[in-house]
């Protein structure tokens, strides 16, 4: 019993250190930035614009790619097919490759020389340096989070319930929307939030595809490069506050939705 207590104490101390490691730099940054600087910086049009652009492009990436990613996650959870393990590996690829390298790959994929770029330019659209390009870069690095989380959600829905719904006369598509998706919703939503969050904070891939228009992470980087730490800090603080607010809000919304299960 005594030994157990000592072990608990040791683990708690180690845990506290890890927590401190996460919190200390953030708190340090907050304290070394004057409220005045934060207020002044938040009034700057460039800052406001970049934050809106970040939220918007991350949202676009999440919503647009979710339409294909969620059904795909269902397929992964339910069906056996050849090379399934390989497919799962491919899905995790964006997590393991360096994001600047991902950016280079995407640039090649959407630049005007590429097939997709050519088609887009037919419609007068150039993805490079365009919010759509930014969304694509964000989606590339963040989509594994949605697919993996949604897949776990669908896998946890008992197949019996889907069979029962079919035997009650529902079509497979109706079973998906009325049984599988609502029951997996907690994980799907969690995946959507993760994808959105990961997209918002992306820097490496986006900077290669589009330096301008400037999303918040790039603005922070630019201010740091051009003017130094003092000027980069207020933007960073504001962006962190906005991010936290958005996630608290989304988590609250998801909590309400979770009640459908009980």
């Amino acid at each position: 019993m005594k030994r157990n207590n000592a072990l608990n104490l040791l683990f708690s101390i180690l845990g506290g250190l890890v927590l401190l490691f996460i919190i200390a730099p953030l708190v340090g940054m907050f304290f070394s930035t004057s409220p005045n600087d934060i207020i002044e910086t938040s009034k700057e049009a460039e800052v406001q614009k970049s934050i809106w652009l970040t939220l918007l492009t991350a949202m676009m990436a999440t919503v647009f790619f979710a339409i294909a990613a969620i059904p795909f996650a269902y397929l992964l959870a339910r069906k056996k097919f050849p090379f399934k393990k390989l497919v799962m590996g491919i899905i995790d690829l964006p997590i393991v490759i360096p994001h600047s390298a991902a950016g280079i790959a995407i640039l090649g994929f959407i630049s005007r020389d590429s097939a997709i770029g050519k088609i887009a330019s037919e419609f007068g659209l150039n993805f490079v340096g365009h919010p759509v390009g930014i969304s694509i870069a964000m989606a590339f690095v963040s989509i594994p989070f949605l697919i993996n989380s949604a897949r776990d959600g669908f896998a946890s829905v008992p197949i019996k319930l889907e069979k029962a719904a079919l035997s009650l006369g529902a079509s497979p598509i109706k079973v998906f929307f009325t049984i599988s998706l609502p029951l997996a919703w907690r994980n799907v939503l969690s995946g959507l939030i993760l994808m959105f969050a990961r997209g918002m904070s992306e820097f490496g891939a986006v900077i290669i595809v589009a330096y301008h228009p400037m999303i918040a992470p790039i603005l922070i980087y630019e201010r740091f490069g051009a003017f130094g730490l003092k000027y980069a800090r207020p933007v960073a603080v504001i962006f962190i506050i906005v991010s936290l607010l958005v996630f608290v809000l989304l988590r609250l919304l998801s909590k309400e939705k979770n009640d459908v299960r009980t």
Partner: protein
Amino acid sequence: MMLELKNISKKYDPFNLEDISLSVEKGDYFVLLGPSGAGKTLILEIIAGIIQADNGEIFLDNENITNKRIQKRKIGMVFQDLAVFPHLSVKENIEYPLKNHRINKSIIREKVINISNKLDINHILNRKPTTLSGGELQRVALARTLVSDPKILLLDEPLSSIDIQLKNDLRKLLRRINKAGQTIIHVTHDYEEAVLLANKVAILNEGKLLQTGTAIEVFQFPKSKFVASFTGVRNFFPCILKPSYSKGLKNVIIDNSIEIKLHTDQTQGTGFILIGDNAIFVSNHKPETSACNNFLGEILEIIPANNSIELIVNVGIKISALISLESYENLSLFEGKQVWVSFKATNVKFLPN
């Protein structure tokens, strides 16, 4: 013939079905009886269309539905774990099949009210399934399946996970549903359920159908050793319990002629009695023992069994008794001989309808 399975086979480890053929008439209460692992659920799922058979055909009302899609079959199934949708209220669960068929809202409301009155769940319509008891969930699952008027109701072990009092209630309910014209196929491992509910019984073991017939045919005249030992009791008879409110012995009457003494908490009504064939004594003279039930009858048949002899004695009803080879020789028994049959009141079990 309402439902017909012709030579259905399915490899589905570890339950492999081999050449299953059976037919169910409209209004039947068909019980598929077998030990766990026999493939009973698999047969239900093949009938429902959840699983496709490898070979064979299924006909419903003379229509070949072998390849018909599950949602078009008009066969309702209540799963063993009920599969009530946890995210929908009781009402939404019951409405679910109706909403799949583009039915007018007012008709849906009416049907939901009707079925919930019938199954006595109208007071829980707005509750979530997680707040319900086992018996309530069972009724919700039944209501949800019955509300769309399926041609056949498939029940997978519907009485296995509820307590005895609820079992009696649910049995009554199932019998009532069946009497109202609903054809039912009921899967179970419990022969008492089969005795009490079925008008037809099929015995399944290791993916093979061993015997099909009326309950009396199958239980009293098992065609194989497995059926005889699995069903266990050969001596079961429909009877009427003579009204009695005393605590002591009670009497049941069989065929308006034979009276048998037994112990039961029931006070009156109809039902079945079961007498274990090991619990029956046979003698040449009227025995002076504590056994209350003593009958004189004629030996109709002598059937050699495993290290023992089975006797069928006609005492007004045909009673089956198992005796050892030694006793058989000591008593010098032969077909046509008059013998006394006796058994204790405590060895008679009464199952009320």
